[in-house]
């Protein structure tokens, strides 16, 4: 059995950086507490505890840097990845998912695969966790809001899942759907939300079959916390984060290009492709740079955004001849 005790060398540097980072923060916080004890008691700090997920997974480590499966950039600490993010089903504040996602039931779980496939059917969580060879990949994640992280995901290629259901030759697109359960997802109950639930995303078939496209079940080698899209989510590292749909319950293969949630809501701002592209700005903000998190006030960690989020070598050929300013 390959377990956590057999983690190859590559992880050690990341683990060190994470603990060192935490120690420094604890120290600074302790110093601050000594100065202002009264206010310290009120502290509603962002280090939300991981209250879900966290079960050890059996996996191996990606080794191919040429394929884009790995990066040398330091990974964002687990506490930041779990404390900060967008999962609008639980609210629009970056801290809402960490606060409220534990209200979602993720076991039992199944994914329905329908549409242009020869063998439509259901995949239960047990089959997902035991039926695929899991691998750790370290990907950059670039949010459309101009912040980014480096995340060690554990998962398997979406292609290997789709192949089991035997896509028909007319399957040209894949549509994904997130769980929609009003009583467990308080963001979907907000009267002022303009989103048409359930959340939907889509990929072109060649994007879906690309080896970089991952179905993730884990983070830092353990099952996903709810706020990060438990129990299974998509990760498409060369596209803006909203394409990497969380907590998937339905996959539909189709001939027509599906309308995705953000595209339906604001077509001028969010396109179907949503490839990371520093030369095409969001109408309300620039995409030329990003803040790599965690940042600090005096070291904002502002870095230039790369074409296809740095995966141009692996994916640029998919879009050869396409006007990316038009198909944003």
């Amino acid at each position, binding site marked *: 059995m390959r377990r956590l005790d057999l983690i190859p060398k590559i992880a050690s540097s990341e683990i060190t950086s994470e603990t060192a980072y935490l120690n420094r923060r604890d120290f600074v916080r302790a110093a*601050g507490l000594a100065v202002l004890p009264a206010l310290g008691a009120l502290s509603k700090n962002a280090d939300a505890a991981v209250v879900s997920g966290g079960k050890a997974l059996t996996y191996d480590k990606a080794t191919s840097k040429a394929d884009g499966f790995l990066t040398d950039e330091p990974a964002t600490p687990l506490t930041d990845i779990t404390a900060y993010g967008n999962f609008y089903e639980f609210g629009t504040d970056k801290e809402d998912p960490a606060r409220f996602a534990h209200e979602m039931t993720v076991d039992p779980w199944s994914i329905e695969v329908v549409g242009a496939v020869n063998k439509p059917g259901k995949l239960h969580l047990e089959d997902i966790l035991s039926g695929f060879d899991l691998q750790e990949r370290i990907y950059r994640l670039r949010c459309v809001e101009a912040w980014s992280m480096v995340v060690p995901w554990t998962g398997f290629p979406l292609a290997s899942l789709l192949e089991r259901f035997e896509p028909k030759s007319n399957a040209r697109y894949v549509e994904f759907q997130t769980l929609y359960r009003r009583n467990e997802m308080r963001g979907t109950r907000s009267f002022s939300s303009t989103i048409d639930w359930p959340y939907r995303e889509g990929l072109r078939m060649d994007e879906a079959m690309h080896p970089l496209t991952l179905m993730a079940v884990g983070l830092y080698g353990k099952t996903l916390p709810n706020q990060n899209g438990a129990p299974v989510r998509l990760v498409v590292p060369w596209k803006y984060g909203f394409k990497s749909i969380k907590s998937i319950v339905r996959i539909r293969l189709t001939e027509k290009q599906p309308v995705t949630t953000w595209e339906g809501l604001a077509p001028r701002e969010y396109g179907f492709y949503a490839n990371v592209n520093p030369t095409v700005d969001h109408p309300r903000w620039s995409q030329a740079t990003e803040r790599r998190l965690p940042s600090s006030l005096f070291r904002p960690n502002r870095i230039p955004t790369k074409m296809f989020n740095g995966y141009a070598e692996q994916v640029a050929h998919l879009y050869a001849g396409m006007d990316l300013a038009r198909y944003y």
Partner: protein
Amino acid sequence: MRIGVFVACLLPFFWILYTAISGSLGPDPAKTLMLFTGEWSLRMLALTLIVSPAYASTGWLLLMKLRRMFGLFAFFYGCVHFFSFAQFYVGWDVSALAKELVERPYITLGFCAWVLMLPLAVTSTRAMQRRLRRNWQRLHRLVYPAAIAACLHLLWQVRSDIGEALFYLVVFCFLLGWRVRRRLERNRRTVAAKASA
């Protein structure tokens, strides 16, 4: 009493200062800081505009005495907000700042709100009030466009949930509506008085 209110208005500032120093602003501290200071500026602005209707219904003179302080705090938090943006988002790069101000309408509006408050803060002293006489009141009506610009500044950044922006918009509409109604009533009264004379 006034000292107590003054200290209370400063508490959010010391709170965010403490949180920043202790490194508890989270993984994206600049953004947390911006949201916090912007929201407090808006709250102080709402508080400033609540004074008149509250005074009209309670007759509590102390309220009127606090108005200037609330207004100045709205400007203060607006300044912290603006300087935080300049420092932590664009690092005082003047060309980058100018580009943001021109290219992002929501930033333009926020900047407008701040610029509109600037002369109000400068002329907030009693001496200026005496010197400007009637014009002082006229000038200080700029607080209304400032409030509207601040609301739109918030609304324009919404990605999908308009709840918070809507809340402030409703509050300011109510406060402005109250003034319009009062103005109309006064006009009617003067017309009636003239007619009976």
